[in-house]
């Protein structure tokens, strides 16, 4: 008896020590651990299953399929990243540092492509540049072969540059003008100062934006599949159509490794480049464009046209035609309702899951809580295809009651997107001093009471904003939706995919337009979030 008691005492002491002497309540820590486990589950299951693929299959794939996929994936990711970094940085400088006429409007417009899912953009540009597209019909030739590397490069660059644009723009605002003035006082002209001081100082921001782009390209399925360019994600998806699921698992593991390498690179750059913010610094002087003004305006107009006006016009045109042909019928609204349902459920679950994770991390910092947080982010950077493959394999075997339901699909969205809610709720919580919790305890609230009556109300705006981001991401999600949707349960994204792959644009455009319209709404949230970084 005594031995047991001692052992229990030691375990309790150890548990307390792990939490730095402030262990959280039992239900809170178990809930946190549970969330961490659920979030890492699909990835873990893919890796686990790949271990049973057999050495022969591994070798065959590594020998043959993997090198060519590595080449097609990395060359695309590399090229898109470089182009998006250049375009995003240039546009950010143009908007934030010059006297470009109409800066306020451009500033928003250049961020709008973020609301257009790349697969919708790909569809729009197949309509314009495709082999039987508008340009072909009007002029008999097309400047761009959409079904090629160039097509994939074009579409992905146009719809991912805003990541770099927003991160760099925020960094420029934070940087202020002092360093440039220092360079001027050291004998550099304005352009030389920009080039030799400001741009190098923006490098961490450019790198951070570029990594977002690279991660996106690695995870994109819809756009590359629509322009029929094969990367890991589309290869895995089509492998799901073959009989050889184990190969899909193996390819998934390689893609997970690629993603981890990119994330690791991000960690390294973030550690090396530490630029201190200058809160007191005055804003930098805007460059006078002088005789370049016309050129800069033309460039902005072209970017705005390519990344916003043309795709929206294509969608509007075909939606108009579709409306005439009865595209907005009961079916359409059922798909819209399905989408709202499952995305709403995902947003709700994400907000519920976010709170304990960020609360443990902020109020009970320890190895355990940071591990939970890391696990919770596992699905975030990973392609939806992999999350879906993992959830199918796990769900059908171990949670048959959930498998094949909208709940399963919502779970996939939670795994992929809940970290957005966590970031947002975490940022809110960081503004609430732990002293507030202590004051509430002194006033007689239990720990649960503090959570319910202080923390939840105070972090609600951030959590809701995070939920909205999850909602929009879920509306746009394609690969996991294709693989996990319940029988007879199509969403708007699925309809865009199905109809556009049949070139039935009058039925593909209305759901695409609705997706874009819903995604524009929380754009302000995104701009604010990047602004705060």
């Amino acid at each position, binding site marked *: 008896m005594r031995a047991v008691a001692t052992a229990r005492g030691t375990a309790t002491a150890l548990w307390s020590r792990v939490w730095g002497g402030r262990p959280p309540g039992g239900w809170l820590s178990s809930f946190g651990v549970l969330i961490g486990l659920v979030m890492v589950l699909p990835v873990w299951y893919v890796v686990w299953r790949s271990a049973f693929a057999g050495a022969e299959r591994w070798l065959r794939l590594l020998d043959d399929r993997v090198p060519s996929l590595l080449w097609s994936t990395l060359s695309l990711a590399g090229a898109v990243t470089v182009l998006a970094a250049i375009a995003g940085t240039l546009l950010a400088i143009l908007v934030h540092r010059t006297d470009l006429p109409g800066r306020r409007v451009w500033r928003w417009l250049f961020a709008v492509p973020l609301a257009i899912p790349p697969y919708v953009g790909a569809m729009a540009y197949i309509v314009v540049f495709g082999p039987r597209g508008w340009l072909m019909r009007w002029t008999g030739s097309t400047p761009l072969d959409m*079904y090629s590397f160039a097509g994939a490069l074009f579409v992905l660059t146009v719809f991912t540059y805003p990541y770099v644009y927003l991160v760099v723009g925020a960094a420029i605002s934070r940087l202020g003008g002092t360093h440039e003035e220092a360079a001027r006082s050291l004998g550099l002209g304005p352009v030389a100062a920009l080039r030799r001081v400001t741009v190098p100082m923006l490098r961490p921001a450019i790198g951070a934006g570029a990594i977002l782009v690279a991660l996106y390209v690695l995870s994109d399925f819809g756009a590359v599949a629509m322009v*029929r360019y094969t990367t890991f994600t589309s290869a895995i998806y089509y492998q799901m159509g073959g009989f050889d699921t184990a190969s899909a698992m193996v390819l998934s593991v390689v893609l997970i490794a690629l993603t981890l390498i990119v994330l690791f690179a991000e960690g390294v750059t973030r550690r090396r480049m530490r630029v201190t913010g200058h809160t007191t610094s005055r804003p930098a002087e805007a460059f006078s464009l002088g005789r370049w003004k016309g050129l800069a305006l033309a460039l902005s107009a072209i970017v705005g046209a390519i990344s916003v006006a043309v795709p929206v016009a294509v969608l509007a045109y075909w939606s108009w035609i579709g409306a005439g042909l009865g595209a907005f019928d009961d079916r359409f609204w059922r798909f819209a*309702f399905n989408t709202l349902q*499952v995305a709403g459920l995902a947003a709700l679950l994400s907000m519920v899951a976010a709170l304990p994770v960020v609360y443990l991390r902020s109020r009970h910092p320890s190895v355990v809580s940071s591990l939970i947080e890391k696990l919770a982010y596992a699905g975030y950077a990973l392609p939806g295809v992999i999350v879906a493959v993992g959830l199918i394999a796990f769900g059908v075997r171990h949670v048959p009651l959930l498998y094949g339901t909208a709940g399963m699909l919502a779970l996939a969205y939670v795994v992929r997107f809940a970290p957005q809610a966590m970031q947002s709720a975490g940022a809110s919580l960081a503004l609430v001093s732990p002293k507030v919790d202590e004051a509430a305890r002194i006033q007689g609230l239990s720990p649960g009471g503090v959570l319910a009556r202080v923390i939840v109300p105070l972090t609600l*705006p951030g959590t*809701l904003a995070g939920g909205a981001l999850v909602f929009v991401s879920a509306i746009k999600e394609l690969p996991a939706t294709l*693989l996990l949707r319940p029988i*007879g*349960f199509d969403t708007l994204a699925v309809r865009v995919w199905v109809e556009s792959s049949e070139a039935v644009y009058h039925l593909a455009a209305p759901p695409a337009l609705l997706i874009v319209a819903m995604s524009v709404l929380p754009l302000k949230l995104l701009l604010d979030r990047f602004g705060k970084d």
Partner: protein
Amino acid sequence: MRSLISIRAWRSVLVALVAVLALAGLAACGTGAPEPVSTEEAPDTAAEATGELIVYSSRNERFVDPLLEKFSADTGIEVRTLHAGDTVVNKLVEEASRPLADIVIANDIGMLEHLRLNGILTSPGAVDGIDSIEDRFRAVDDSWVALSARTRVFIYNKDLITEEEMPTTVWELTDPKWDGMFAITRGGNSGMIGHVSALRNEWGDEQTEEWIEAVKDNAGAITEGHGDIRRAVGAGEFAFGLVNNYYYHQQLREPEDNNVGVIYPDQGADEMGAVVNAAGVGVVAGGPNEVSTRIFLEWLLLPENQREFSFASLEVPVNPEIEAVEEARPISDYRIQGMPLSELGEVWEDTRSLIERAGLDMELR
């Protein structure tokens, strides 16, 4: 002050949004998620009609939905369908321990036979009307039935090439004189896989590999699917292309770019004949609605519904009793290559690796 007001306005928008989300979410929890039917209850209810049928389909949904709607109207059985392209294969394999589907509709007999060989399909027992389909178009245990045939043909643009100039055999595609003039699909296309399987059966692996290597270099384009080929040939981008015959019929119905012709290859007395594949339905082993499944099969084998099945896609009915679409030659009308369709399943994986080995990309890249 202004920014404060706008923040407040924004917040109220958010709150409204989330309220909607919450309602939608609760609804999804309650009614939206279709209740999976547990197999544990199956033994008791097996003999009763459940009033429901679950169909997985890899065929174009436009061909399938009208047929299934007609079935619901005729029988009162509600049909729920998952149109998921080729990924239905993976779904069926993953779900083998706990099947959700009753019926699988596939575009390719190789796929159905492969599922059968993996124990995913089961015999429906005796089904009225099944004799209307020849043995060679059915699984040995009747677990799948082919209903509509597609034949591998050349579609050609009459503005660019005459019938006399066209090649008459598939082997002729290796001739350098056709360099860049025709289009084929990627190697992973199920029509292409079926075709190559037949060529292996006819020529052996070595000659088939030789054919693939030459044809992939000779082809002016390698496309994702056959729809691209018919549109491209119709628009005059290529003189001709290798497609399934109904793509020719589809192109004829286009309002423009429809001056196309068709060649059924290898029709000479000592030649192998045109390669045929078929679309059909399979019966999923352990599916939740056994009675509905049987009702569906018997309904589908009624002549009018067999006709519906093939007419929607402009394919040719496998049952020679049923008239073909207008321009189509009935299947009894021409020479066809002799490999039984059921053999497609066994050689499926081998054929895929042979195509890959010969250098024809399975996916476009």
